[in-house]
C-alpha cells in the first residue's frame, strides 16, 4: 500500500503556501559517503516530478551563502525527493555538509540546464569521479532502460573515496573501477581503463563523463584518438543558473556558450579546457579568505 503522505502533492497544494515564502525546502537526510563527499536528500516535489538525467539545481545553504550548482544524483518522483552528491571544498559546500535532517535550505531551484541527450547507441561508457560517481547513476539507469550496454567506469585516488558501487552494478552491465593507488581495480585511472577496454576488443559507441574538470578533460583526451563521441557535464562557476549572469561561459568549438542554459553537457572534444580550468580558479584566493573567517 502506498503511504498517503508521500504521494506527490497536487498542484493546488504546491502553490497554496504561505503568502511570502514558498515554503522552505527541507533536508530529509544528509550522510557522508566518503571523506569530503556528502549525499544530501531534500524534499522538493516539483523538481522531483520534472528532473531528467544531466540536469542540475542551484542551492544556497543559508541567507549568506553563495548560489552554487549541484548535479542531481537521484530522485524519487513518488516521495518528492531529490538527492545530490557534492564535495566539500569551500565555504558554501562546507555549510551544506553541516545540514541535518529537518533543516531548511534557503534556495533549492531547478531543474536547470538541458536534459542529457539519451538514446539507444549501443555500448555506452559512463565515467564518474568524485561527486560525478553519484551523478552518473541516473544516467546509467536511463541508458540501460533504453536498451544500451552500459559500462560504468568510476575512479578515485583510493578505494575509500568510492561509493555507490552496488547502485551502479544494478544499473550497468559492467562496472570498472580504477584507483590511483590501485587499492581496488586494475587500472590507475579512467584513460588506462578505456585503453584496456578497447584492447580487449570492446567497441565503445559513446562516453559520458561527469566529475571534476581535470577528470573530464582526461577522458575526452583518452577517447579523442579513437573518435568516440564524448559528452562531458561542465561545472563552471554559476550564480543564477538561468542564463542571466554569464559567469558560466565556456568556449565550445570556438563559440562562447553559457553552461547553465546551453549545457551543461557538451562535446568534450570541442571544449576549451584550458579556459574552463582557469575560470574555475578565479576566486580561489577569496574562497579561502571566506572559509577562514
Amino acid at each position, binding site marked *: 500500500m502506498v503511504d498517503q503522505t508521500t504521494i506527490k502533492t497536487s*498542484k*493546488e497544494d504546491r*502553490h497554496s*503556501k504561505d*503568502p*511570502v*515564502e*514558498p515554503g522552505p525546502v527541507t533536508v530529509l537526510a544528509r550522510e557522508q559517503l566518503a571523506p569530503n563527499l556528502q549525499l544530501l536528500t531534500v524534499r522538493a516535489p*516539483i*523538481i522531483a516530478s*520534472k528532473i531528467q538525467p544531466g540536469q542540475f539545481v542551484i542551492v*544556497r545553504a543559508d541567507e*549568506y*551563502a*553563495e*548560489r552554487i550548482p549541484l548535479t542531481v544524483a537521484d530522485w524519487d518522483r513518488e516521495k518528492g525527493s531529490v538527492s545530490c552528491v557534492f564535495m566539500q571544498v569551500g*565555504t*558554501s559546500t562546507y*555549510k551544506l555538509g553541516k545540514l541535518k535532517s529537518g533543516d531548511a535550505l*534557503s*534556495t*533549492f*531551484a*531547478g*531543474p*536547470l540546464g538541458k536534459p542529457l541527450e539519451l538514446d539507444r547507441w549501443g555500448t555506452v561508457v559512463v565515467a564518474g569521479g568524485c561527486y560525478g560517481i553519484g551523478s552518473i547513476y541516473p544516467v546509467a539507469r536511463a541508458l540501460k532502460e533504453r536498451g544500451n550496454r552500459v559500462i560504468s567506469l568510476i575512479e578515485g585516488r583510493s578505494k575509500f573515496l568510492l561509493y555507490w558501487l552496488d547502485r551502479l552494478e544494478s544499473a550497468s552491465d559492467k562496472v570498472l573501477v580504477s584507483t590511483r593507488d590501485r587499492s581496488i581495480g586494475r587500472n590507475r585511472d579512467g584513460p588506462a581503463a578505456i585503453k584496456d577496454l578497447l584492447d580487449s576488443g570492446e567497441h565503445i559507441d559513446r562516453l559520458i563523463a561527469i566529475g571534476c574538470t581535470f577528470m573530464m578533460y582526461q577522458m575526452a583526451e583518452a577517447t579523442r584518438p579513437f573518435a568516440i563521441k564524448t559528452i562531458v557535464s561542465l561545472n563552471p562557476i554559476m*550564480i*543564477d543558473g*538561468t*542564463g*542571466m*549572469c*554569464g*559567469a558560466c*561561459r*565556456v*568556449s565550445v568549438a570556438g563559440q*562562447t556558450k553559457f553552461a547553465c*542554459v546551453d549545457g551543461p553537457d557538451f562535446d568534450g572534444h570541442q571544449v576549451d579546457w*584550458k*579556459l574552463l580550468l*582557469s*575560470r574555475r*580558479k*578565479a*576566486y580561489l584566493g*577569496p*574562497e579561502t*579568505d*571566506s572559509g577562514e*573567517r
Partner: protein
Amino acid sequence: MSKKPKQIIPKKTPMPEQPPAERIKNYNEVPYGYTPEQAIAEAKRCLECARPLCVEGCPVNINIPAFLKLVAEGDFRGAINIIKETNALPAVSGRVCPQEEQCEGKCALSKRFESVAVGRLERFAADWEASQGTPPIPDLPPPTGKKVAVVGSGPAGITVAADLVRKGHHVSIFEALHEPGGVLVYGIPEFRLPKAIVRREVEYVCRLGAKLVKDFVVGAAETVDELLEEYDAVFLGTGAGLPWFLNIPGENLNGVYSANEYLTRANLMKAYRFPEYDTPIARGKHVATVGGGNVAMDSARTALRLGAEESIIVYRRSHEEMPARAEEIHHAEQEGIRFELLTTPVAFHADSNNWVKEIECIRNQLGEPDASGRRRPVPIKDSNFRIPVDVVVLAIGQSPNPLIPKTTPDLKTAKDGVVIIDNETGKTSKKGVFAGGDVATGGATVILAMGQGKKAAKAIDEYLKTRQW
C-alpha cells in the same frame, strides 16, 4: 477668478547628498531627500500651467500639478494618494526615472530655467508615507475566483500584481531568484535604490493578498502551458536578463564580467559585504566599464565602492550620446569616474594567470546619425592604444532570457527574443498570456515597464470578465 502671476524661482531647491569623497567609501544612498520645508518650497515653484505638459511626459500620467499643489500646502498624505492612483512604486520611480526626458523635460520652466524637481518631490511624498508606519490596506472587493500567474517580480510584475489583487483576483507571483524585485534588487545598487524600499513595496503587494513564490523558475519547474492549466491568465514580466558580449578576443578571461554578473554579485549576493556574505567579487584597483547607460554608471560607481583606485567608463560615442540619466552621469563625474569617450574596445589581453591585464581600444570620430538617431562612431585607423586594468565590466546591453519562449512554442518573439505584444493591452500571440516590461521592449526604463504593467493589468481584468481575446 484671477490668478496672481507667480514669482519665478529659476533654480531647483538643492537636495542634500553625501559628499563624493565620503560616499565612495560606503554603500549608503547618495541623496538624503528633501525635508518637508524643502519639499514645500520646491513644490511652490510650479507655475500651475493651464495645460500641464508634465502629465503627458509621464509614462503613467501621474496628475503632477495636483500632487505638487498638495505638497505645497503641506498635505503630504493627499499628495501620495494622488501619485498612487496611477503609480504603484513611487519611492522607486522617484529615484530611478529619467525625469529630464519625461515630466521635467516637458515642464514649462525648463525652457529658460530649471524645471520643477518632480522626481525629488515624488520621492519625498513616498518616503514621507513610509515614515508614517505601515500603510493601511484598502478595502478590497470580494474574491472573483479568477487566478492570475505573474512571472517575474520586477517593476512590471509588481505593478500587474498590485492592480489585479485590488480587483479581487487571486495573484501568484513567481520569482526565479531568492529575492523579489527583479532588476531593482539584482541590478540597481543599494546606493541608488535602497533594497529596504523594494522589500517594502513587495510586502505591501503581498499584504494586499498576492502570493510570492521564490526560487521558482518558470520554463523549468513549470512551463507557461502548465501554468495555464491552473491559472486563468499569465503575465510575463521576466525582463531582459540575457547579457550581451562584444565578441572580441579575450572576452572570457578572468576578471571580465558582464554587468549582470558584476552587479548581481555586488547587489543581490551582497559581495560588497564579503566575507560576511560568502559570494566573492574581484576587487579591482583599475576597473574599466564598457558602455554609457545607467547600468554602466552603476557598475563604475560600484567599482569605486569596492575599492578601485581608478574607475573608467569606456564609451564609443561622445558625452552627448550617452543614454544614462543626467543625474547618474553627474554623480559619476562628481565621484571621479574617468570617461574615455569615443573609444571602442577591440581586444582584452591577459597576464600569465589568464587574468585580464589590458584593454586594447581604438578611437572613434562621430559620423552620420544611425537608426537610433545618435551619431555613429567611426573608428580612426591605427589609433589603437591600451588601458591597464584588472577588472572589466561589460555594460553594453541585454535581451530577454530565452527560457520561456523556448518552452512556449506558440509565443511569438521578434529580433533578440523580444516577446511581441499589442502595445495597448500587452496581449501576446498566445491566448491568456500577456507580457510587459523589458521582455517586450528589449530593455527600457523601470517606469515604462510599470506603464506597460498598468495597461496589461487593465486588459487582464477585462479578459477575465469577458474571455474575449
